[in-house]
Each structure stands twice: as C-alpha cells, then as structure tokens.
C-alpha cells in the first residue's frame, strides 16, 4: 500500500473515478491548466481533455448550477469551489434547487461539490471557514468531512456513486500535513459510519476533520494522567452515526463534542441535543462542547490560534468532564 498525503489521496481517488466512469467530469475555477488552487487536478486536463476538466469562469452559481443540470442529464459532475468559503455564493442554488429537486420532482441530482475548508494558516476570515454545519440543516444534502487519507479517497468514491448532492469538505490544513497508507485500488467508505479513531473508556470525544488530530493529541496528554478517551471521527455529518455515539456514551457516560466551526448552532449542538434526549439516563456529566468562539475567523496568528480549538482547550475540557 502506497503512502499518500491527504491531498494525494483525494487526487488519486478522483482520477480513479474519472477513469472508471466516463460520466464523471470536473468543473471549477482554474482546475485545468493550473490543476486547481491546491493542485488536486494536476495532470487531469492532459489525461481527460477539456470537456471533462472544465475551467469555469469565476461563477460559483454557474458552476454549481450547471453541475446540477448536467447531473440531471445523467452525468456525474464533481465541481470544485476554490475555497469552501465561496460556497456561500452557491448557497441559494444548493438549498433551493439541488437539495429539494428530488423530493419535489423525483429527479436525483448526483452531484459532488469539493470544498477545501478549515483554517490554521492565516488565511483570514474568507479562506479559513468550516461551513459544514450550515448544510446539515438542509434536508436533501449530504455532508462529508474526511480526516484521513484513506477516508478521503474512499468517501470520495462513495460521494461520486451517491445519487444525491454531496458536499465534500476537504480540510486544507490536512492536505500536505497528513500522510498514511492508502489502498491502491478503488474502494468505498460508507456514509453514516463513524470511525473509532482511538478506543477508550472514560470519556467519549466526538469530532471530525482536522480536529481529529487535535483530539488525539489531547487524548495523548490525558493518557499520561491515566484517563482513557474514546475518539469517534464522524466522517460524515449527514447522515451521521448517532448509533455509534450513543453506544460509546453508554460505555463512558461522558461526552465532549469538538469542532473547528463556531459554537452557536454548529453541528455540535445537534449532536448534543440528540444525545441529551436519547441518552439522558446514561449521562453522568453535562455534555460539553469545545468549538471556535462566535466570531469571524481572524487573520493574525495569535488571534487565529485563540480562535481555533487547541490541544490545551480540549484537554482541559476532558479533565473537567472526567472530574465531574
């Protein structure tokens, strides 16, 4: 099994999908000659030609909207927005057309939207956001947030096969930082199944995306203190693996939810609400959330560091829970 970065895994997975199924095409700004802002599609134009690797004008509505149209005609578009932040420009199309078309008209929209998200490199308020939570409130959309190279590739294959609009959030801060063994051939990772990133007994930590690694570092710290943390990586938020969370909470009786997005009405709230309702009798402590504060994500390093949940924040929340 070759070792790949998270970015290479996405690129590899996408190339395999395009080789496997000629209905798959990519469209986005600078995806052709340039190979995409993050170089995920380097070499694609040469291999697949200009009508399967489409450099679009700076037009998020046209990109998402025409991808929907092509999907309705039986193609399998994988559209790239240059940064997940710009998905706000396609919000209306996604929630109004793509999300509701199947329910209203019975016509599936097999669309994948690739969204490089997340902060950690002073991208500032418009190149660092984690907008996944907002989409979990929109029935009809699926939301995917891989944390590992292996999942990145396997979830992309699942996304391409899925007959629904799938928002595929790839965390930019993992692109080149995270490397792991990835199967060479094609495989799929199912939606709605959490991954146990680390098993443990004392407290459950539910998270996704880049925060999986922050969680792991915090858990390392606590291991030294004799505390065993179970980390669940949700992998997909819509659908999400409630069962796995409830089972882990039944075991540990304590739950910490961690996300990089801002706190209020983030997807952590939904997890907390459901666990509070369904595991009421199992909880031995209040459900805690560690998330970014309710501000735009700032540019300057000291501010950004204070904004993004850090290992110390997670560790202290875990300690509080254990001590409760």
């Amino acid at each position, binding site marked *: 099994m070759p070792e790949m970065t998270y970015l290479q895994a996405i690129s590899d997975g996408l190339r395999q999908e395009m080789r496997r199924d000629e209905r798959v095409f990519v469209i986005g700004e600078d995806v052709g000659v340039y190979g995409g802002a993050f170089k995920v599609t380097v070499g694609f134009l040469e291999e697949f030609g200009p*009508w*399967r690797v489409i450099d679009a004008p700076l037009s998020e509505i046209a990109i*998402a909207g025409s991808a929907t149209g092509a999907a*309705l*005609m039986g*193609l399998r578009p994988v559209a790239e927005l240059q940064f997940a932040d710009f998905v706000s420009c396609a919000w209306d199309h996604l929630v109004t057309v793509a999300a509701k078309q199947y*329910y209203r008209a019975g016509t599936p929209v097999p669309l994948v939207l690739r969204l490089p998200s997340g902060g950690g490199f002073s991208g500032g308020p418009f190149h660092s956001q984690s907008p996944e939570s907002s989409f979990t409130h929109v029935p009809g959309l699926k939301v995917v947030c891989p944390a590992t190279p292996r999942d990145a590739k396997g979830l992309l294959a699942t996304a391409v096969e899925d007959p629904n609009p799938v928002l595929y959030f790839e965390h930019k801060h993992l692109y080149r930082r995270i490397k792991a063994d990835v199967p060479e051939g094609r495989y799929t990772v199912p939606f709605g199944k959490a991954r146990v990133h680390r098993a443990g007994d004392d407290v459950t930590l539910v998270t996704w995306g880049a925060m999986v690694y922050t969680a792991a570092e915090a858990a390392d710290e606590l291991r030294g203190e004799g505390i065993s943390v179970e980390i669940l990586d949700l992998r997909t938020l819509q659908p999400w693996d409630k069962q796995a969370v409830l089972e882990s909470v039944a075991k540990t009786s304590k739950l910490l939810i961690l996300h990089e997005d801002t706190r209020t009405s983030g997807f952590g709230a939904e997890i907390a609400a459901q666990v509070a309702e369904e595991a009421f009798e199992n909880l031995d402590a209040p459900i805690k959330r560690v998330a970014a504060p309710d501000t735009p994500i700032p540019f300057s390093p000291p501010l950004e560091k204070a904004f993004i949940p850090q290992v110390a924040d997670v560790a202290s929340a875990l300690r509080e829970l254990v001590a409760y």
Partner: protein
Amino acid sequence: MAIARDTEPLGSSLEIGQLGLGRAELLGMYRNMMITRGIEERGHILYKQGKIPGSFYTGRGNEAASVGVATAMRPEDGGTPLHRDMGVHVTRGVEAWRILAQYMGRADGPARGRDGNVHLALIEQNLISMVSHLPAMMPVAVGLGLAFRIRGEPRVSVCWYGDGAAARGDAHEAMNFAGVRRLPVVFVCDNNQYAYSTPPQFEYACANLADRAAGYGFEGIVVDGTDILAVYEQAQRAIEKAREGGGPTLIECVTFRMEGHAVHDDAFYVPSELFQEWAKRDPIGRFGLWLSEHAQLGEAEQGEIENEVKALLGEAQRRAEASPMPDPAELEQGVYAESTEAPGDTDA
C-alpha cells in the same frame, strides 16, 4: 459582435412551407394554445371554487411564445420552462388532467402534491421542474446544454426567464458561461413587461433585454411574442443553430401579462389602455385569424377544435378531481434518492 435585432413580422405572404410546418402542425399549435389557455381558465374556476390551495398563476397572453418555442424543439431537447410557460408542457405532451391535479395538490400531479401550481415538469421530456426563486433554473438549463456538449449529442437546452428575473445574478452567470463555452442553449426571455407590479423602467435601463446578448458574445433577437409563427421561426433558427455548434441565442419574446401577477392581484397598477391595446393582439385570436386567412380554417372546423378541447378539459377535470390527496404517511419519504440510475439519459 451581434446586435439585438427586431424580427420582421411574418406577412401573410409567407409560405407556410418555408417554416417547415404543414397544416396539421399549424392546427396542432393552435390546439395547444387553446388547451393551454383552457387549462389555466379551468384552474381559475377551480381556484374560485376553493379547490386549489395556495395561490394561482397563469400565462395568459404568453401562449404563442410558449407553444411556439416548444414546437420548435425536438423531443430529445430539454429545458427549464417557467410559470408563464404552461404551453411548453402542453406541447410536449403533459396530460391536462395531471396539470389540474397538480394545481389541486393531488397525488397524480407531477409533483405528487409536494409542490404546487406550475412547479412541474416531466424528466422523460427532459424538462426540469422550476423552483420559485427566479431565475435559479437558468444555470441548470445551461448545465443541460453542458451535458449535451460533453457527450457530443446534437441536443439543445432551452432556458426560459422573465423580464424581472433578468435582473438577478443567476441570469448573468448562466448566460456568461454559456457564451464562453458556446454551449447549445437557447435563452428565451418572456418579456411580459411587468415583474409583479414593477414596470420595465424599474427593472432594466436598456432598450431591449436582448441587447444584453452582445455582452455575452452571442446574438440577441426581439420577437413579437404574440405572433406564434414569428416566435416559431426564430426559435427554430436559434435551436438548430445551437444544435450545429453555433452557440447560444437570446430570443426576447415581447408580450403582455394579461392578468395580475397571480390570482389575488387585480393589477390596479397597470394602465387600462395597455390591457386594451394588448387585448387586440391576443395570440390565440391572431393565430386563429391567420389560420382562417391562410390555412382555410373555417367556422365549422374551428368549432370542432373548440369542442374537442372543451371535452378534453372536462374529462381532465373529472379525472383530476378523482385523483386522491397525497398520503401524509409518505411525507418523510424521498428526501434522498436511493438509486443511482441515470435520469434523463435519453441519448440513443
């Protein structure tokens, strides 16, 4: 660079044959216009009888534009008709009873009661059901054209929008992208000169919306939207040009919205002279006259057609009213598709 140009009115001397339309086709178009209006008139009555929930919209005055364009399309073509374009669905063969069932929120409407009024379209006909947000379907229509282009199919997408909706960003992004890639898309602007209560001078500041085509690198044409033969001629030319790789065209069909925006709106803000003036150009009346002058449509045959349409609509209403209401137990079904089967992939 193309400049918007007005089309010549089709004089009586025009040979029918030049348009490739035989007498049967012409009468078929006439019939489709009458069915279209008939469905909407029935709808009005059903609405007043309290049988149609929500609001109710018609395309009165737009029958020549909608039927004319749809007649110029081939079955394998697709598109995204809007709320004044019932004639498109009728022409492409959606049965009248299903439309009435849709109005009434019944299970047999194409939207199965999940959506209402003219939010319907059959994917088998390569038509995509509109959303309310105007003109959010334009980028989708461009996507149809993109799919045809990617697969190298000789198919064309027709993209409808209104004079009011033309102000929104979606219109711009859609037309720009289609122009840049010379996609097989024909844009049809139903310019009925009002957007709800808003007149053209508050919607746009150019003389004709077709003028905008130049900014997207394709041709813009202004056509009298009450003259079905003029509409057909331009639509056919544009569609075939697109099919042959000639890229998009914008056809602006100038008509008049002959009723309020919706059933609750008495259009008090429209000068009554305008209604009077445009009533003289009623598209069905005009075409009927033309047919009597050039296609030997006599009173007897005219009466036959009327009776036939009436019968069809009576039967449609009976059938629609017999359609059940949707089952609330199914409310939560079908939010997500289970099957990956390719929809609309009708290429041979």
